[in-house]
């Protein structure tokens, strides 16, 4: 498979493009270490979600259970906030969540919706972790975008009726 070029990352949001660049700059084994670092840096759940897994969405595509919560703030930009919960025994799943958190948290709803669906494959991880395992990250991104879309629409509808 040919190495990706900078133009392959041109349509990614800035923080995500930088991460993709970091991954491509290192060897396969080092990519795993980078993923491990991201898994360690994944923020803990804020108090309002602790013990509230029923308020979060379960991502079934992940091999290990991962729970996701998406908030869209009622501001002009419709700022997106992401929250993830995955056990320490699932570092790969946590690492994928770490990439999405670092790459997408704090962006506008529009920016998140514009993220290409194949973004998970832009980090050169498929060979390092095997393509089958990438499904988890594809599932997370799809669910994040779906929730952002639903929540933005709900906010717009509420704004119009007010």
């Amino acid at each position: 498979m040919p190495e990706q070029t900078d133009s392959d990352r041109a349509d990614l949001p800035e923080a995500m493009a930088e991460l993709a660049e970091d991954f491509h700059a290192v060897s396969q084994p080092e990519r795993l270490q980078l993923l491990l670092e991201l898994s360690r840096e994944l923020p803990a759940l804020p108090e309002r979600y602790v013990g509230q897994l029923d308020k979060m969405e379960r991502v079934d595509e992940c091999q290990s259970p991962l729970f996701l919560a998406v908030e869209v703030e009622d501001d002009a930009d419709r700022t997106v906030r992401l929250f993830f919960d995955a056990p320490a025994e699932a570092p790969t799943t946590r690492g994928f969540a770490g990439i999405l958190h670092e790459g997408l948290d704090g962006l506008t709803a529009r920016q998140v919706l514009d993220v290409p669906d194949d973004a998970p494959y832009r980090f050169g991880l498929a060979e390092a972790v095997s393509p089958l395992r990438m499904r988890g990250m594809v599932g997370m991104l799809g669910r994040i975008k779906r929730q952002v879309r639903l929540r933005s629409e709900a906010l717009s509808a509420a704004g119009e009726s007010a």
Partner: protein
Amino acid sequence: MSEKIDAYAHPERLVTTDWLAEHLADDDVVLLESDEDVLLYDTGHIPGALKLDWHTDLNDPLTRDYVGGERFAQVMGERGIGRGTTVVIYGDKSNWWAAYALWVLTLFGHEDVRLLDGGRAKWVEEGRELTTEVPEVTPVDYPVVERDDSAVRAFKADVLDHLGQPMVDVRSPGEFSGELLHMPDYPQEGAMRGGHIPGAKSVPWARAANEDGTFRSREELEQIYLTEQGLDPSDDVVAYCRIGERSSHTWFVLTHLLGFGTVRNYDGSWTEWGNSVGVPVER
């Protein structure tokens, strides 16, 4: 080893955490960690253990199949494993992937391969040492041995021939019954059809394991598979799940703990059967 392990049909296939702690430094023992999660080993592992990944080491990158003899020899040799080495495997998820790896080593006829009873979780729970230090290995020559799929592996055609004979579906009850669990926008992935292979008995793999991930005692296992399910150690049995990993666990139980003579793991499992045109499905 222990009273519990000595009661099994092939006690030499299982080691306790105590045994492992005593034999970690043995020259003729190589310890492998095989997990579902490819990074778990890197977060900390049993001292001296090497990583063996089911995707990147044991599966062919192109064809849906296991690696061939040359690649297998390389995977073993670079871990310092010779044909006569005692290989002990442990992993996460009650040893699913460890059992899967052991089964693949069996395809290549590696004679002395054992599981750590309770796997990674038990070692951790007992507060034993973990390290992130990857041991340095002096590579050895492992002979190129061709895989022999005939004894312990079933292909789809074998399963079609086997219909009407004992078969164990080790998936969860929901997968067995064919109920779909999906939400709007997310059609069930993995298989076009839900259900099970006609005549298969539903015995979820986890019934063979205790809460701490160790195997149930021989007496308890006989109660489940012999008394309740009516299987006999002389039966010709096929086990399957979704991709063949959970059924490796059951294959290990039937073959090594209960001494069944003919058990084949159908690794194509539901991701093949549930997508195949024209094969019979029962719900």
